[in-house]
């Protein structure tokens, strides 16, 4: 599909999954997505994200936190890619350490943003990953 044929997000009903163990961040990320017309679900750690996909759910975009209990973002991203999940995965984390960021990217991320997320950072993710949105 060419760039010109891509519908804008408001009409295409894009879906997203928020993966974060922190309720404050869950609330903010869900609100950011809803504001841009993106239907979204939320889970609390990487294992729940993997389980959601095992049960047949699929999303256009996954916002993946790095530090989470049970299964962290790097492990979850690797696992999802091993399962053949081709969703766009954007890592979001407060950790700016270059080594950890590199490891996270190499796990299979399509993009990376530092928290806290804002409308403009989310738009940046969406534009980089070729999702177009009308604000």
């Amino acid at each position: 599909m060419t760039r010109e044929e891509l519908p804008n997000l408001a009409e295409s009903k894009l879906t997203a999954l928020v993966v974060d163990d922190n309720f404050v961040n869950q609330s903010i990320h869900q609100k950011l997505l809803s504001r841009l017309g993106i239907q979204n679900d939320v889970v609390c750690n990487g294992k729940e994200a993997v389980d959601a996909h095992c049960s047949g759910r699929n999303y256009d975009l996954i916002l993946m936190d790095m530090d989470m209990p049970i299964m962290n973002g790097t492990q979850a991203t690797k696992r999802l890619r091993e399962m053949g999940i081709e969703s766009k995965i954007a890592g979001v984390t407060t950790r700016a350490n270059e080594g950890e960021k590199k490891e996270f990217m190499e796990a299979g991320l399509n993009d990376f943003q530092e928290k806290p997320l804002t409308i403009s950072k989310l738009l940046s993710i969406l534009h980089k990953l070729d999702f177009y949105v009308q604000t």
Partner: protein
Amino acid sequence: MDTLIAQLQRQFRDYTISLYQQGFLDDQFTELKKLQDECSPDFVAEVVTLFFEDCEKLISNMARALDQTGNVDFKLVGSTVHQLKGSSSSVGAKKVKGLCVTLKDCCDSQNFEGCVRCLQQVDIEYKTLRAKLQDLFNLEQQIVQAGGRIPQVDI
């Protein structure tokens, strides 16, 4: 002579500006305000409530860890304060976030006295912010009850 609404709106504006000028809040709080709309008119209050619940829980966990005299798990305290730093950053709680950075440094250098002192400051600071934001939300309510609109404040 100013109407009651105009007085309340001016009070609200001045108080909001003071919270930023005194370093209690930063730009991220402004970003949260942008997300509040008719569909979720209490969004900011709801998110900061979650944040203060986070503060209470995480500070309690860190206090318990620091209470294990002679056997303090600094790594646990460090990872807990990292979580609190994340939440405080997400809501724009500037002073709380700054203290979390200092506390993390104390954990990394296993400075027990520093950790205890800093944790006490974090506790005081989040409670101060909670009281100030409650005052701000009360002002908003007064404006609405008086029939006025909450002014947009440009920082």
